[in-house]
């Protein structure tokens, strides 16, 4: 079984991101970059499938700048067999261009399964998995919390509003991972030492023209101060009404 995991490096969710001087990009100084958390589930699932089947190969496919090497090494240390790094400069690429570049590369690769996170936590676009399915003309199941692989088919539990949808499809396919799919392992220290010896191919991506352009980035509006509705038990009905009608939290 040949599995490709499309993985992105993103700023750590703990990082306070600042907008760069051009007003369109994120200032990379002091940002700690990590493997996109949803992609970690994808890597873990790929490793689990390989272990269960007893054979196979897990390849990491990452598009990104030089610094993305750290994320790639982490995935190799977790147990992936090899990696392809499509190197870009640190410039923003829209989801169309990213998916197209990955698809160009995938067309020259052998694969039975493509795994990726349901979205990247930096731009939250949640487009890559679905676009890859379309560009490669293969089935795509998104937001998957359980995955079973048979010889040439898969069954996936998808998280949908208020419940679970169970779908089946043929392989090869694209699966996008949701939290709950598994519990990603830590890279072992031995794995980290071995990661450097695993094959890593660096390539120029084939970049198509983008279809979106970022005009401007803005910080979220400052939070408004609190309001005191009243005092004592008499204030409760009014508080409940406001929580229900205005804040819409109950």
């Amino acid at each position: 079984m040949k599995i490709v995991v499309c993985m992105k490096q993103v700023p750590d969710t703990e990082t306070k991101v600042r907008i760069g001087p051009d007003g369109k990009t994120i200032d990379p100084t002091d940002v700690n970059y990590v493997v996109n958390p949803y992609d970690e589930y994808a890597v873990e699932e790929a490793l689990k499938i390989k272990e269960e089947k007893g054979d196979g190969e897990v390849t990491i496919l990452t598009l990104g700048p030089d610094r993305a090497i750290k994320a790639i090494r982490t995935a190799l240390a977790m147990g992936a067999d090899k990696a392809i790094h499509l190197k870009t400069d640190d410039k923003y690429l829209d989801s169309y261009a990213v998916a197209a570049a990955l698809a160009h590369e995938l067309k020259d690769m052998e694969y039975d399964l493509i795994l990726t996170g349901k979205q990247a936590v930096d731009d939250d676009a949640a487009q890559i998995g679905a676009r890859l399915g379309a560009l490669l003309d293969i089935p795509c199941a998104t937001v998957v919390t359980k995955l079973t692989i048979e010889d040439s088919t898969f069954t996936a539990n998808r998280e949908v509003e208020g419940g679970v949808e169970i779908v089946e499809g043929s392989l090869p396919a694209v699966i996008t991972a949701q939290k709950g799919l598994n519990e990603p392992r830590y890279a072992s220290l031995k794995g980290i030492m071995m990661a450097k010896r695993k094959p890593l191919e660096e390539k120029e991506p084939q970049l198509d023209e983008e279809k979106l352009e970022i005009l401007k980035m803005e910080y979220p509006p400052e939070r408004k101060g609190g309001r005191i509705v009243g005092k004592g038990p008499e204030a409760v009905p009014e508080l409940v009404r406001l929580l229900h009608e205005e804040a819409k939290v109950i």
Partner: protein
Amino acid sequence: MAKFQAADFLNFDRLLSEEEILVRETVRDWVDARILPVIQEHYENGTFPMHLIPEMGELGLLGANLHGYGAAGLNNVAYGLAMQELERGDSGIRSFASVQGALVMYPILTYGSEKQRKRYLPKLAGGEWIGCYGLTEPDFGSNPGGMRTTAVDDGDSYVLNGTKMWITNGSIADVAVVWAKLDGTVNGFLVEKGTPGFETTLIQHKLSLRASVTSELIFNDCRIPKENRLPEAKGLKYPLSCLTQARYSIAWGAIGSGMACYDEALQYAKSRVQFDRPIAGYQLTQEKLVKMLTEITKMQFMTLQLGRLKDKGLAKYYQVSMAKQNNVYQALEIARTARDILGANGIVGDYQAMRHAANLESVKTYEGTHDIHTLIVGENITGISAFTPERRSS
């Protein structure tokens, strides 16, 4: 608790390799996720988080700088950074790893027979088995050469008699490395749990290093097979060589405690308002914080150099002594100062500083006390041993 922010004032990370950083980040994440949420409760209850031992094995934290037999094979800097992160969690966790790796696996690997290595090392590296190291006795701490525990050659076995005191992991160990005198010479023996004549008692009511098991080992005509002697370790210098390994891990560990306390104090000082401004805005508090950070920075570079020397086989025991002594002393000062900055909050378990401070009191004493390390370095630079005073002629 806010997420830990590691101090790196002088771009220390620039001197590290990609792997060394990745090892540190991995252990850091593991400590954040697995140790910090449970450590206070274990500390209060005086228990070791036993459920984490297999995970430590899986991660490769046990004997991580040793090569072969299931050990991770890290270089000494990556290993040190891992120990730093463990002690950032708690000195008891790092102590567990130091004892298992430096005091149990190291002598078996270095002075053991092939049969002993094969029997013990993979299980110890994987966290399936726990080891302990018995050198100290009730009457012989700083002066282990005076030990009274004996081994007597009796046909196809050795018979051990004596008592070992203050033994980390003693009551939970599957195998004990025990140092005893055979015909007047110190030798190392492997004693397995359940051997008749070998008993342990837990030392209770500790006020320091509470999340760590400390025990007394009692040998009463304890008969072990001859093949359980470490064949290559005859003389006091062999147990001392193990201590050099463990002291190296302590030097790094102390940086971790210091970093945890500094980070906690800094974050607290910036948000705690008194007299209408954050206490971090007062000169006295700033002086404390600056002193803490300066000492952490000095420790980082000294200990890194020690690690690089160790990787080249050039680190000397007296250099390790200087680092162990200095780092533990400074970490303890940092922990106490952090406790001070936290005010009353500093004395409760919601904050870490006082737990680290209490732990570091043990760390200052074990593996050679602060004073003993002074004497080791002192002897090296003067050429005169001050361990035993010259007797005055009346």
